[in-house]
């Protein structure tokens, strides 16, 4: 799998409240609608202009805070191709894998990328191609590979239960 898109770049410790505000957690329940509010309290420009295939680049501890899965769903439903970050908060990391949203840890690529750059993430080769060079990233741990291959946790569980 390979995704190519334009970069939206953010800093460290971006929390789930600014990704998907708490006030919407019970008033917006349609998955497609969630995409409209992605990053609303972080970057209104993104909320307005992000295009399917774009790629989010974040610093350390992306997605800290609440366990709300909508903070992953809204980005996925917005059509974002991948999130590249220096690191992910643990619940967000799990939620992203469970939702089948590709996430990549690469501090080097994050430092190299600027807003508006075109970037390609090649999951088969485990590399990120940027205007400033190509960076390798560690493949997913074995125990989550099955999850990714099945397209997220729910299809994975269905499959394992033979349903």
């Amino acid at each position: 799998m390979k995704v190519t898109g334009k970069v939206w770049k953010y800093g460290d410790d971006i929390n789930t409240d600014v990704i998907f505000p708490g006030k919407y957690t019970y008033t917006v329940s349609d998955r497609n609608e969630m995409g409209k509010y992605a990053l609303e309290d972080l970057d209104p420009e993104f909320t307005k202009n992000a295009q399917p295939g774009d790629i989010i680049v974040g610093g350390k501890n992306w997605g800290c805070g609440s366990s709300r899965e909508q903070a992953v769903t809204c980005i996925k439903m917005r059509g974002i191709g991948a999130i590249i970050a220096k690191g992910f908060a643990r619940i967000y990391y799990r939620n992203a894998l469970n939702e089948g949203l590709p996430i990549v840890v690469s501090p080097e690529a994050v430092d190299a990328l600027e807003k508006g750059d075109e970037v390609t993430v090649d999951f088969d080769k485990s590399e990120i191609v940027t205007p400033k060079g190509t960076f390798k990233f560690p493949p997913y741990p074995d125990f989550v590979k099955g999850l990714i291959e099945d397209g997220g946790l729910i299809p994975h569980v269905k499959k394992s239960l033979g349903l």
Partner: protein
Amino acid sequence: MGKTFAEKVLGKAAGEPVSAGQVVIVEPHFCMSHDNAAPIWGTFEKIGVKKVWKPDHLVFILDHAIPAPTDKHAENHMKIRQVVKEQGIRYFYDVTSKGGVCHQIMCEEGFALPGLIVVGSDSHTCTYGAFGTFSTGIGRSEMAATWATGQIWFRVPESMKITVTGKFKKGVSAKDLILKIAGDIKADGADYMSIEFHGPAIEEMSLSERMTLCNMGIEVGAKNAVCPPDQKVLDFIKPIAKTDQWEAIWADDDAVYAKELHYDLGDLVPAVAKPHTVDNYAPIDEVKGTPIHQAFLGSCTNARIEDLRLAAGILKGKEVAVRTIVLPASWTVYRQALEEGLIEVFLDAGCVIVNPGCGPCMGNHEGILAPGETCISTANRNFKGRMGNKDSFIYLASPMTVAASALKGEISDPREVL
């Protein structure tokens, strides 16, 4: 080589000795969900399983927006009541005077027990570590999958040992300690780790104070946070335990830690976390005099009877200068506050008492801020937009600091009014 708390509890559940870095699959003892039980049910249905794996392992507690502020919230609650009925969920806390904030109820009602593994579809599930529980927050899909299979995977975390000694000075409390820790190690300081609190000062702390510490473990990225299951814990849980499966498990003396820290309570001062991050620590002197528009005494972090007593001690016989919202963590706490005359103190001081729940803390209802407004709050998060508006400002502080600030209408040093 000894084992950490996380290694021992996860190893016991996995049925084999484990070390940090290994992946285990375990069956959780309790799965807590709040208002999000309804959307989780929607995901559960997609799996195609008809019945949850063990209905008595599920706990539903309505708290995030109660009583329902909108028809959407009401529909959500209605769905949960339907699921409770259909699936035979025994542990359900509806909008009644038996309920309250989910984490408070889990602890008050004997679900938070030593050595158990508890997952919750809420990030502050780590609170139960105060009772020696291995507890952690998970997302909605993962909760749905756990209901279906009774299994969840964990990477056995590395551990951080925080040893606490000394005594609090006047006007300083557990909240000031955890704000200081967050300021020192930052929001990712314990990412993926298990935090263990050790030392004589932890043993001297009340269970309520330990809950404040463990509650905010997630604010430094921890998977879980835990205190020793000492006699204080055992005396509390024995009469109320919902299962006899618990076991007092604690780290070995020679366990191996990824990081060790030490704090002396005597070194601490009243403090705040400035907007918009929990690790934006400032001693009170630095922010004293900052004007506020609202004070909030509530949340799963600091709204227990001990917290209300400290705040009432400062407010007694005086009047608040700004709107002050008091939200006891549960109806049990509310009732006790009533019996002790604390509710009267708050009312006499001009405070508004709202029902136990999460409303103001996460911007749902009962205390949303207007653009440009500033609130001082005993809650655990001050993220931009957290209380409903992205152009407002939240300072986190202890119940004493919040009460002192409410009196003056500006951030104030509680030591000056004690």
